[in-house]
Structure formats: structure tokens, C-alpha cells
């Protein structure tokens, strides 16, 4: 039995709550249908630790808040033919970007000093440095498909992936909205 060529999909989460990935999993039995048509080559949901060089569809959740986020976004743009911003954090910054109204040092102090009772300290080792301004994905790299929502529904994600599998660029505006 010959298997049809599967499209290669990579996903990752940047600064977000991973809720969009949870919503992805909410596709339930449609996931079985999906694995017949896509190869998830890199994702928090699979074991691969290295982003392959040529990916058909890259899906980014979360906003760009740290140097690590920035590197990942640049790598995804470099290696993915089509880049999808999944969810409000990726599309408009959402909750992570609400810290933009404050100075970064104030934010860090608040989180690691002011509100901590035992051994307040600002972590420096093993964590990426924070950027002063949180940006949506398209604030840094070009994005091809925007899927707003907090999170986008499983139906919306299914629709977007189905269209991409079919070789079409989806217009999710009828099934998504900011904050939904």
C-alpha cells in the first residue's frame, strides 16, 4: 500500500500558556485522520529535539518575549515554507505583551523580589534573557497565516490544517476572532 506524501509540520510554543497546543489536542479523533496526512517532525508533543531543515508548515504559539523565543522564531521562518501564528499571543502579543506597559526591570523585580518571601533572587542561569518589548511573531518575522483566538478552537485549527494539507492558504476569519 502506497502512502500519500505527507506534509511535514513543526510546532513550538514560545511565550504563552501552551493552551493553543491543548486546543490542538482537542481535535480528538480527528488527530487519527491527521496523522495519516502529516508528519509532526518537531513539536513539544513529540520527541524530536532538532528542527529539520525543510518543513512544510511551521506553527508557532506564543509571543516573542525572550532571546530564545527570538531564535526559535527566526529558525522556524528559515526552515518552514509556510509559517502559522497560532493563537492571540502569537498574533497580537496578548497577555505576555501586557508587561510592555512597564519597565522590564520593574516586571522582573515584581516577579522575583517584591512578591517572593523566601530567598528572593532574579534567575540568570539556564534561562534565556528577556527582551525589553514583547512582540507578536509578525513583529519579527514574516507570517503567512494568522489564526487568532485565546485559544483558537479545535475546529478552527482543524480547518486551517485541512486547508494547508489540501495545498490551499486558509482564511480563518470566519472561524476565529481575537480573544475567542
Amino acid at each position, binding site marked *: 500500500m502506497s502512502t500519500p506524501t505527507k506534509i511535514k509540520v513543526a510546532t513550538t510554543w514560545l511565550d504563552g500558556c501552551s493552551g493553543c497546543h491543548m486546543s490542538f489536542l482537542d481535535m480528538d479523533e480527528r488527530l487519527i485522520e491527521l496523522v495519516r496526512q502529516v508528519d509532526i517532525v518537531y513539536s513539544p508533543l513529540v520527541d524530536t529535539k532538532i528542527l529539520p531543515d525543510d518543513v512544510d508548515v511551521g506553527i508557532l504559539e506564543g509571543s516573542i518575549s525572550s532571546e530564545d523565543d527570538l531564535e526559535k522564531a527566526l529558525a522556524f521562518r528559515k526552515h518552514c515554507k509556510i509559517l502559522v501564528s497560532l493563537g492571540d499571543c502569537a498574533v497580537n502579543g496578548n497577555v505576555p505583551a501586557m508587561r*510592555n506597559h512597564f519597565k522590564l526591570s520593574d516586571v522582573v523585580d515584581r516577579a522575583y523580589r517584591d512578591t517572593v518571601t523566601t530567598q528572593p533572587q532574579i534567575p540568570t542561569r539556564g534561562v534565556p534573557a528577556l527582551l525589553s518589548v514583547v512582540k507578536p511573531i*509578525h513583529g519579527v518575522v514574516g507570517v503567512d497565516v494568522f489564526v487568532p483566538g485565546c485559544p483558537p478552537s479545535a475546529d478552527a485549527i482543524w480547518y486551517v490544517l485541512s486547508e494547508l494539507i489540501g495545498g490551499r492558504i486558509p482564511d480563518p476569519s470566519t472561524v476565529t476572532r*481575537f480573544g475567542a
Partner: protein
Amino acid sequence: MPPPAKQPNVRVVTLNIDGRDLSAREDETIIEVCRENQIPIPSLCYLDGLSVWGACRLCLVELAGQGRLLAACSTRVAEGMQILTNTEKLQRYRRTIVELLFAERNHVCSVCVSNGHCELQYLAQKCGVDHVRVPYRQVAYPVDSSHEMFRLDHDRCILCTRCVRVCDEIEGAHTWDVMGRGSDCRVITDMAQPWGESDTCTSCGKCVQVCPTGALVKQGTSVGEMVKDQHFLPILARRRHAQ
């Protein structure tokens, strides 16, 4: 500007909107005729019952033979008008205007009390705004929670002045007004004192009802205010056991 007065014995004109031949009273505006005939025209500052403001520019339409766009809310119909309400150009302009609004203040739908009931959010979807191309301005605006029943969050305000107009024209209190210039504009109560200290506010809540976004809301509707009071439980339980 007061709402256009309905005159007796007005004439009826015929006009064409998006290829449909329609009739209308000559004292009607284009937006009124469109709403009557279920022709969707986006708008934010226009609200049936309030005076025409003409500021959001979302209801702009194209009139055959005229280069300049017309605001449907402030333009009366005329015999033989040929109007297009949804051309590619108008869609593009509306998209950009909505994007400008989203970028201007802090409109984070996911944590807004009006999520799902917001005209701006709805318009963004209708106009196909799936992302905002212009950079977010990231300016923090204050929140006024001094009123015991209502709250004002300037971050969500789009300066449509519906609150100002309903308070002045319908309630007759004129508690609200606008101060400042450009993006520093803010709606204010009385002489820019906290809402809770306003002498003129009647607490009628009309402003909250007409606000298209989450700028004016009832107190107690935010997530943080959903406080559960469970004191009753041990008391009730003890008394029951005591019986």
C-alpha cells in the same frame, strides 16, 4: 449636531445601493437606509438614537461620480444616488482603521470583561482583521474604579463619544466630556475628577449600556472580582450537626 429632525411631508427618493434599487425618505441618511434594508455597514460612533458624530470613519461609502468618500451616517440620501458600500478599497480602509484602533490602546480581548460582547472585536472579525500590521503603541492609560457601580478603563476606550452623547442628549446630565488632544484624548467625568466624586452623574448607567467596548462596565464583572463567599458553610454545617 442635533439628530436630523423628521419633517412632515418629506419626499421619497429612489437610489441604488450595491446594485439594489431602493426607496427612502429624503430626510434619511445613507446608514439609516442601509440598516432598514439589511445592508451591513460597519460603524462604531454611530448609534441609532444619538446625534451623528461622524468620527469613526468606518461607515464611509463610495458615491458614483464623486472622488471623495462619504460617511453614511452624516450624508442624507438624494435622488438617483449610486452607492457602493463594500468595495475592495473600502474593505482595505476599514481594515486599516480597525487595526489603528487596536494598536492605539490596550485591547487585549482575552482578558477583557467584554470579550464576546464587544463591537470592536466583532468588527475586527467582520473586517477580516486577523492581525495588526502597525506596531502597538504600548501606552498605559489609567482605570477609574471610584464609582460604586461602574468602572472606566481608558485602555479600552476608542473615543466614540457615545457615552458623552447619551449622557448629554438622553439623560440630560452631561457628566461626560472629552479632554486633551490627539491620542491623549480621554473621556472625563465633570471637570476630570474621579467618576465616584462626580456631582452630576445620576448613576443611570446609560453610558455603560451604549459603550461598544469594555471601557465602561459594571463593577463586579471582571475575573478578579468573582469572589466566592463561603463563610456560610461551616456555620450552617455546625448548626445542622447541633440539632
